[in-house]
């Protein structure tokens, strides 16, 4: 197992380097003054210009610049955001937990709902119950998350006033303990719901296919012949064997969501990485954009690694490499 982990790690590092290289290549493509490209729409004094040129080796050739950027990265220096007046790393460290929180709450709703709907429709295959859930899941999956978010805000927040329309809560709150949690839950409810509907129905579609596949296997017939109840069969034999496709897709969704759910965060003004990215792009704060891009790629790589490990933990055949 340890060998497997090491092998995957060795595989991930060159990938990360290549990704960063491509992102830096994008930074080179920005037309015009490279100093201005680093700083954004921001007045630069000559002294400042000289300092930046020296720090990022802008007078040197491309390979030297890339090398020095990597050295900076390894020292934890992602550059400085002149728009936000903060180091880019600080910005990311500040906003990333909000995106992670939103994504995790969304997942906590989406996974059980998706698994449940998938199992219900696979076990009632081609009956009315299945048709109902399959069609509903298909339509719900086709709804664009950001539009669904708009509708939720319109109906549940603006008209009914049950939820706040945007943000993640007051900066200063008088509430404590449980009521504080309750207050925060009101803010996260709608964005998490919009996320969970789209992803939950995606998971349901996958679960239905893989559970249906598993139910056709010989060992399920054996289990049934032994007189196990339907629930015991599903819990003991079906769930684990049908979970691999779900883990693959869930990992893919998680990885891309952690890089910032741009649309979702824009609709709800949720101050996470996605919203930061949109602001940075609008203000041409390129160092911040590059920092977020690197963080997003890192999230995908780390999640893929975790998915591989989970795979190996669930399916011994993968561990032994056959």
């Amino acid at each position: 197992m340890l060998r497997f982990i090491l092998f995957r790690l060795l595989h991930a590092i060159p990938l990360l380097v290549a990704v960063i290289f491509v992102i830096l290549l994008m930074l080179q493509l920005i037309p015009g003054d490279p100093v201005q490209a680093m700083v954004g729409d921001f007045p630069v004094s000559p002294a400042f210009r000289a300092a930046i040129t020296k720090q990022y080796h802008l007078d040197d050739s491309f390979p030297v610049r890339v090398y020095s950027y990597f050295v900076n990265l390894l020292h934890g220096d992602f550059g400085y955001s002149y728009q936000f007046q903060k180091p880019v790393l600080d910005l990311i460290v500040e906003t990333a937990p909000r995106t992670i929180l939103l994504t995790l709450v969304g997942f906590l709703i989406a996974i059980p709902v998706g698994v449940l709907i998938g199992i219900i429709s696979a076990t009632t295959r081609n009956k009315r119950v299945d048709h109902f859930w399959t069609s509903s899941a298909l339509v719900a999956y086709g709804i664009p998350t950001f539009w669904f978010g708009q509708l939720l805000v319109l109906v549940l927040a603006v008209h009914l006033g049950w939820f706040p329309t945007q943000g993640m809560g007051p900066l200063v709150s008088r509430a404590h303990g449980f009521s504080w949690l309750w207050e925060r839950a009101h803010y996260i409810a709608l964005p998490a719901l919009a996320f969970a509907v789209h992803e939950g129905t995606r998971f349901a579609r996958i679960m239905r296919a893989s559970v249906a596949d598993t139910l056709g296997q010989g060992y399920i017939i054996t289990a049934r012949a032994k007189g196990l109840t339907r629930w015991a069969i599903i819990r003991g034999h079906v769930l684990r064997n049908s979970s691999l496709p779900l883990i693959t897709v869930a990992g893919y969704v998680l990885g891309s969501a952690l890089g910032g759910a741009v649309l979702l965060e824009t609709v709800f003004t949720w101050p996470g990485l996605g919203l930061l990215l949109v602001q940075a792009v609008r203000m041409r704060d390129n160092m911040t954009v590059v920092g977020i891009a690197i963080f997003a790629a890192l999230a995908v790589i780390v999640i893929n690694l975790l998915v591989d490990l989970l795979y190996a933990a669930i399916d011994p055949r993968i561990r032994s490499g056959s």
Partner: protein
Amino acid sequence: MSGAAAIEPPSAEAGPLARAWRSFRTTAGNIARTRHGAAGCAILLMLALVAAFAPLIAPYAPLQQAPASLAPPSWENIFGTDNTGRDIFSLLIYGTRTSLAIGLGAAFGALIVGGAVGMLAGYFRGVVESVLMRVVELFQTLPVIVLVLFTVALFGSSFWLLLVAVILAIWPLQGRLVYGQYIRLRGMDFVAAAKVADLSTAHIMLREILPSAIQPVIVQVALDASVAILIEAGLGFLGLSDPNMVSWGQILHVAQDYMTVAWWTSLFPGAAICLAVVGLNLFADGLNEVVDPRMRGRLAGLQT
């Protein structure tokens, strides 16, 4: 050439085009007989007709302004008007063109790029395989949407830039799928037989293996188109789609500021996006069922 002609079955009096047409007709008929496929075909056919005959269907020119801005739905403007008095129904009709062009264009672009890479990586072993698959992995790891936002903000938006961007975002999936198919087929007896018969590599890849590999790939094309439509709508919603074109996402971008007083600016464009995406997914389900009858009642699109 005479040797190749002799391999043709004697019953094939018609040319390859006619035979392709016949098999297309059979497949289309079979799709229309599945429950999901029929619904999907109906929706797609309707959207295609709307896009083709947009000027005949739309009551107003897309940019023509009515006297009343933000007018609620009425007989003059059945879906109401937006903040500058444009008829939303007419905007949606013309927006169908943009969405279908991006959806189909990007799906076929992804088919060509992903297909070529997957084919080469799957057929040749060794260096070609590992280098190409690392490229696929690189593109799957790159936060393409971040880079798309970045590029569009820097260079301004245009239809072609959007199309390329969406293709770059979705091609790796298709590449992986084609790669998997070629890996599965490259060891089969008919490929070995074709090699013994001294057929050219291009002939083996395109004429021998491709017909056996193509079916799930076509299902993926339909799914890719739905993802592309969603990406374009999302970019439009952020205000980053081509400003010279009418698109569903763009209407939603404008609607963001007015939807509390004018719900119709948001409801109808979103429903249009939903319809197109659901139509493509239904079509993919039907196609999947026809392609692989064992899949009856299951769903396509494990990957998307």
